[in-house]
């Protein structure tokens, strides 16, 4: 057997394993949810209101939006490297949004009452805006996918609503009275992170990812680090403020290992790997996976730093419970599972595909 044939066989084996592994993770996640539903929220780490489920929700919703934006960019003549991937991007976006919805359901204390969103929606709540934008974007993504032929207006509109999801989720934190979150930069950071995850997902999933995508990631990673350093400097400059106390947690406090861990493993290491001249395709994938994990860690750091110092209260610590970790893996597994299933069974059967084949 030649080397290339051997490599191809290894890839094929790895490819065959993705679906069962992702499916198993999804089943584990659903099992954790069932345990949570039976036992109640006492199985969750409840020292802070929003923990790993919300971080995963932000990650997955951002991933979906990033993928939609990449697909739209390609439709409008940019990122020609993604030419043949437009429908895969849409499947990935739909899978991410559905998994994001699963994470929110897991987070709710009374998930059965989700129907209250329809019965008595409060339109001043950004959660309702987020819910509406998510539902609308998911429908538009599916319409774009199943529609015969490409419609620039439609994909453009979908990209706008997808952008809306990312901005709204940034604002959900930014307009809060929590000092660490009160920053107009957060929606921008969420947008950059969404694009990082989307590009990294393409680099991870595509066999021979074009060099141009690596360069985009090389451009985005320093940007998100720069934004974070700006936040830290701004928050710390005046010394004895609530924001400075939160930032201090990140720099030298209990969250420092996670903050510096994010910088080293989630930003600098992927950058080094991507910039390395002799890098292999596998190293690019490792860099991409690290970048995705880095975004999840960055969101966790932001969430915890904002809630660890309650008003006139003692500092609290948070670490996800086993059930939460299972739920997180389940959400991520569900996204991959739906993407692979969608790619295998929908890709070639959509009218768009038929049209293309013709």
């Amino acid at each position, binding site marked *: 057997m030649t080397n290339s044939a051997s490599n191809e066989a290894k890839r094929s084996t790895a490819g065959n394993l993705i679906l069962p592994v992702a499916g198993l993770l999804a089943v584990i996640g659903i099992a954790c949810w069932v345990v949570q539903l039976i036992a109640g929220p006492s199985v969750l780490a409840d020292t802070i209101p929003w923990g790993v489920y919300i971080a995963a929700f932000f990650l997955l919703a951002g991933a979906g939006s990033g993928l939609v934006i990449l697909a739209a960019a390609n439709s409008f003549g940019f990122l020609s490297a993604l030419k043949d991937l437009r429908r895969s991007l849409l499947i990935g976006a739909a899978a991410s949004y559905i998994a994001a919805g699963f994470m929110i359901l897991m987070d709710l204390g009374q998930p059965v009452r989700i129907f209250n969103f329809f019965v008595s929606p409060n339109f001043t709540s950004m959660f309702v805006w987020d819910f509406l934008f998510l539902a609308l974007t998911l429908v538009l993504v599916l319409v774009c996918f199943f529609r015969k032929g490409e419609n620039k207006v439609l994909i453009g509109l979908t990209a706008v609503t997808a952008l809306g999801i990312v901005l709204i989720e940034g604002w959900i934190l930014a307009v809060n009275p929590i000092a660490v979150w009160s920053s107009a930069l957060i929606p921008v950071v969420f947008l950059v992170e969404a694009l990082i995850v989307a590009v990294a997902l393409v680099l991870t999933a595509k066999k021979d990812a074009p060099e141009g995508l690596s360069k985009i990631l090389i451009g985005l990673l320093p940007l998100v680090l720069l934004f974070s350093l700006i936040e830290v400097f701004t928050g710390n400059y005046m010394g004895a403020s609530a924001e400075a106390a939160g930032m201090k947690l990140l720099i030298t406090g209990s969250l420092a290992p996670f903050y510096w861990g994010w910088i080293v493993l989630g930003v600098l290491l992927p950058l080094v790997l991507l910039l390395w001249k002799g890098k292999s395709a596998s190293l690019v994938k490792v860099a991409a996976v690290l970048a995705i994990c880095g975004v999840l860690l960055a969101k966790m750091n932001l969430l915890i730093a904002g809630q660890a110092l309650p008003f*006139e209260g003692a500092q609290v610590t948070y670490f996800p419970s086993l059930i939460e970790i299972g739920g997180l893996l389940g959400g991520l597994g569900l996204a991959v599972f739906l993407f692979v299933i969608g790619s295998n069974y929908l890709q070639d059967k959509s009218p768009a595909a038929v049209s293309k084949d013709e």
Partner: protein
Amino acid sequence: MRYGMVISLSRCIGCNSCSVACKHENGTGPGVFWRRVVITESGKYPQAAMHALPLLCNHCEDPSCAKVCPVKATRVNADGVVTIDAKKCIGCRYCMTACPYNVRSFVTSNTKGYYDEGLTDYEKVAYEDHKVGTVEKCTFCTQRVEEGRDPACVATCPAKALFFGDLDDPGSQVTKLLADNPNAKSLKPEAGTKPKVFYI
């Protein structure tokens, strides 16, 4: 009508009787405090001092918790009291992050009582009012106020540091206290929520 509270910081002795009375009246579980007293220290001996700051829901006129609640479970009643409809709350905890005072609690279990032997008869009855998976907080003891009584914390305070009444009634004690103390403060006024709990 706008119910509100005035707290005299010079009278408060930081004994936490109000916290205990609240737990007794409302039957909240271990670790849940609808109101608490924060004790801080300042200065150095011989000029050292202790300060007590009772904290509870501020029943704001423009509450951020009500604004962000996606299903209108939190609302401002006609009497100015901010309440949560436990039958509507979906347990998203958005209100908990939006509250500038961190005075809301998430009910995670109604099976953990104060004693190893299991729930007492009182806990069994009281915990039925606390719906697992929902958010709850101080209600100004609506059940007592409707009967013409003061909230439990006010009735219990041994230092008579807590005053409750109608801020719209010129003859009420709270209105008179605020008129006599033009420097009365509310917490985090910069949050723009217009609290109805004042400190003198």
